[in-house]
């Protein structure tokens, strides 16, 4: 092994010397010459690193995976329960799912890697429309999209549940999940965050029903009666589109006249229903989506969203 390493070192030295010859190479061929040397150098360095790790890993003894403890190590114990913690975002997410479940909503998790069709096309975004820019999406080489909103699941929810409509049942599903936006991180902005989407479709539902369901959710979540408000909004996949606000709950130190913007919502655009194979003449529905991180920050009085994904035990063990 050692001799192999020495051989590689020698090879590297020889190669480094070759770089000196570059001045003898005609100018137009220098680029190619340099690239070739670099490729060979990377190869040698790679082999050296591999060899080094082989040497490092060589002395390792195997262990008996069927044993409950190591030789001479004593009994393996769990850590004390005191140290344990659940992530606050996940705790709230579980709670949100449970409240919606009690209101008749099934839950399905949002995908973290999706495509243009689900993220935009199926949601009635016109091709090349400036509205697509507002989402600051990431993209992979293949054109896949880490979704910027949980609405990326609407098409799937509608398609998977449309059979219920024929039976006279409603589609009622929430979609919690992780979403991504290409933006710089600071105390109040994260490129990675959580949303919860809601979709409801039936023959008779109205915008008034939507406001009722959202109010009920937030009243259950905060355990008190709440005043609600709306603002007109714009989303290509709902018509009408609204922003939904609640009176800041007393538990969060809210005073009369303080309102919090909680989510965007609206009546599902007929084109969205049509694309998913639901007859918009016969059925209509509503959908909403809002951030979860802010709910949690408000609840615990946190001031820096970056804590959530920092993985620091000093923070997490507080929960």
């Amino acid at each position, binding site marked *: 092994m050692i001799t192999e390493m020495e051989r590689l070192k020698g090879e590297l030295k020889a190669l480094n010397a070759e770089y000196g010859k570059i001045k003898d190479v005609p100018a137009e061929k220098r680029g190619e010459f340099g690239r070739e040397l670099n490729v060979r150098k990377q190869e040698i360095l790679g082999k050296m690193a591999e060899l080094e790790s082989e040497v490092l890993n060589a002395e390792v003894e195997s262990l008996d995976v069927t044993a409950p403890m190591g030789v001479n190590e004593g009994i393996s114990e769990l850590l004390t329960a005191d140290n344990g913690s659940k992530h606050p975002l996940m705790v709230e997410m579980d709670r949100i799912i449970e409240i919606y479940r009690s209101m008749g909503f099934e839950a399905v998790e949002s995908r973290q890697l999706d495509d243009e069709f689900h993220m935009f096309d199926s949601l009635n975004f016109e091709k090349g429309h400036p509205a697509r820019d507002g989402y600051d999406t990431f993209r992979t080489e*293949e054109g896949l999209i880490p979704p910027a909103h949980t609405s990326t699941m609407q098409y799937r929810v509608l398609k998977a549940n449309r059979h219920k409509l024929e039976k006279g049942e409603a589609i009622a599903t929430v979609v919690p999940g992780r979403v991504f936006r290409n933006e710089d991180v600071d105390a109040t902005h994260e490129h990675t965050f959580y949303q919860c989407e809601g979709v409801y479709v039936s023959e008779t539902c109205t915008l008034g029903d939507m406001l009722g369901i959202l109010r009920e959710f937030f009243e259950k979540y905060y355990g008190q009666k709440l005043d609600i408000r709306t603002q007109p909004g714009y989303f290509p996949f709902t018509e009408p589109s609204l922003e939904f606000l609640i009176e800041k709950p007393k538990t969060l130190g809210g005073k009369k006249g303080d309102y919090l913007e909680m989510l965007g919502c609206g009546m599902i655009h007929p084109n969205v229903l049509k694309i998913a194979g639901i007859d918009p003449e016969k059925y209509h529905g509503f959908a909403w989506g809002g951030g979860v991180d802010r709910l949690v920050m408000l609840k615990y009085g946190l001031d820096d969203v970056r804590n959530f994904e920092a993985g620091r035990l000093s923070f997490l063990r507080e929960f």
Partner: protein
Amino acid sequence: MLIALNWLKKYVDLSGVGTDELIRLIGARLVEVEGVVDQRKKYENIFVVKVVSAEKIPDTHLTLCKIDDAGVAKKISRGEDRLIQVMCGAPNVRAGMLAVWIAPGAVVPASVNEDAPFVIGTRKMLGKYESHGMLAGADELDFGNEHKTIAEISPDDAKAGMPFGQLFGLEDIILEIENKSLTHRPDTFGIIGFAREVAGILGQKFETPEWLMDFGEKDFATENVDLKIKLADGDICPRYTALIMEGKGDKKGRYLGEIETLLARSGMRPVSPLVDMTNYLMLLTGQPLHAFDYDKLVAVGGRGGPEIIVRLAKQGEELELLDGKMIKLVSSDIVITSSDRPIALAGAMGGKNTEIDENTRKIIVESATFSLYNLRKTQMVHGIFSEAITRFTKGQPAGQTLPVVKEFAGLLAGDMRSLGLVDEWVDGQKNDVVKVAVEQVNGLLGTEYSSELVMGTLERVGFEVAGGDFLENGAGAGPSLRAAAMSSSHPSLRIAKSPKSSSPATSLAVTVPYWRTDIRIPEDIIEEVGRINGYDNILSRVPLHGTAAANELFVLKARVREVLAGAGANELLTYSFIHGDLMRKVGQDVKNSYRVVNSISPDLQYVRQQIVPSLLVKAAENLKDGFGEFGVFEMNQVFRRDLGMDEEDVPILGNNLAFVYAARERKSCFYRAKKYLMYLARRLGVELRLEQVMGKGLPQYEAFYEPRRSAKVMVGDEWVGVIGEVKKSVAHELKLPDGTAMFEVGMNTLIGKIDSLEKSFKTSQYPSVERDITVVAKSGVSYEKVEGRIAKLLGDQELMYKITPTAIYQAENSDEQKVSFHLEFADKQKTLANEEIQRIMGLLEQ
């Protein structure tokens, strides 16, 4: 976008509503008001004054002035003539002019938002002249950059002693509007369109100014105009209207005008009268205008012109913009050319080669519409975010180009002469008619609006509505309903209003005004009705429903969370994207990861294949932070390219649970990690088995496990994950202690196996016996075999038993291991006698 309320008031009556209530209503029914800037005190203690005398001081640039403020300024020292003395350095100061005077103690308006606002005082100049306050230039008054001269006020607008804030409605309140939710509403990017909405909200019928509805070309000689227009493609430029005017150059006027102050209040800098007028009309109507120097345009075009050709740019074509920047055009840019030579980047900025200046005699004013899709790309490629392109990318309606440019001619009629107008419109005006049933409105909103209310709402904001019952059966009338969005050519076809009848209309035919490019389907109309009347006035109710079935994945995750946190471990969330270097350090192949091409930083470039590498990084950080021993876990999604696509043609996703156990003072954490895995399995009711990894038996995405100290995690015959210690080389790279251990398992397989473990633990009714025993075994014989042998022996004796390992000991240089157990056993039939116990122990010890 900034909206000056005093400008808005010129188009809508705001007298019946307080400012706070107005802002609330706009927020609830049109658009979010992000901020309110109260400028009512901005011009306090600033007055229009008359310069009575102006005496040049020799050998200086200064002029000693006496001004008349009509006695309005308080606490100021005046001469016997009641006049105030003030020194002025501007060359245009002269006796008889009306100027703007900032009294001592007042703040310079341009500095009100600065950290230290500049307060004007009284001071002695040149050692002997008292100067009280100052005569202000347009820059100090916050109306632009002009600072050589002082502002002059026309005697038609004011007289001496008038508080300056009362001029042109300068005591104003400015609303800061959140543009984003108006992406689909080009009409609201003009004061008139905004006012129309506010009127509708306040219950007033809005009267659109007549000139905006005047589509005729009379008064304009369109015949003998020496200009041709060619539109290469109606999709990229549907309409181009050009007005030719003749004047005396674009020189600054003598007086400060209202338009300059309106531009300033809307966030734009006044430049020159012609440019200001184009901007004024843009802010008023949403229609951007651009003025070319006619003679320069002709010169650029060469022989055969003048002809304006609008076409897509050729890749690499060059153009010098007004701001002096030379840009290379791309093929999605739209260019305005003079006989095919570029003179402007359409929608974004004019070219240097046709810029108007003080010597300009003839101008061509462009009023056009362009494809918002192309302009959006132009915006991104060239980084131009002007007020004009912001409006163009909302899709300004083609219908307004002619009325707006005619208004331009009218407003400048005193200074310039219109020579003619050329208008090229590829398609011509079409006004959509959308039919909607009143029942459909109420059915979607959950309201009980009458047809009168619905009609009235729409008419207030410029829709023409005819009532009738032409949709049989009201709502849900079948395909005809949705096909009802049809076109009629403007303006001849209008659906006549049906004569008033006793029975209310059940359906409405709504003619969409030309400025509402966003209205196409019945839902668009329903939105208008709901929004303008206020969604907050809609009664909310909750449809009946029961409890829904639970999602198995979420149930599993919640249980895992409960069990592991209850056992002292900490749940983490880490990013779904990782650095390529981390993948290389742990031995993964970056080519097997989806790569994000527009990542914020290299730290977030690859979609992760496994969660453990992220947890290892966090473990190292927490050890460094002083935590000596801990277990961390995360449940999240993972993706690998080699998994391919699912039936929806999106990457197959894995739902993984990952766990890392790290300890600064421990040689090996394998059995700690194993303890957690087996404890979790037991609590979930899943039977797990570990299988030694043979040779290099792990795929590359799990290359960081030391194969000699790892095991495959099996559920039945299914391989669900890996548990093991990290390779020494990886521990080294990540600055982790050797022996750090971890596992990662796929949760999808676990879902179906939860609670499948048979709980058939029976107890004997006879007393059980407890004994300790130590068995000696050759090292190399697995623990499983040793324990298995004991279990078999006890089982063969028809005993009920429980085996608890208590120690595994191996002396140095010995090849034997001593494995100690604590045993509990009982007979199913009887109490075990002493002799019987002796016999069993004897068997075990052999």
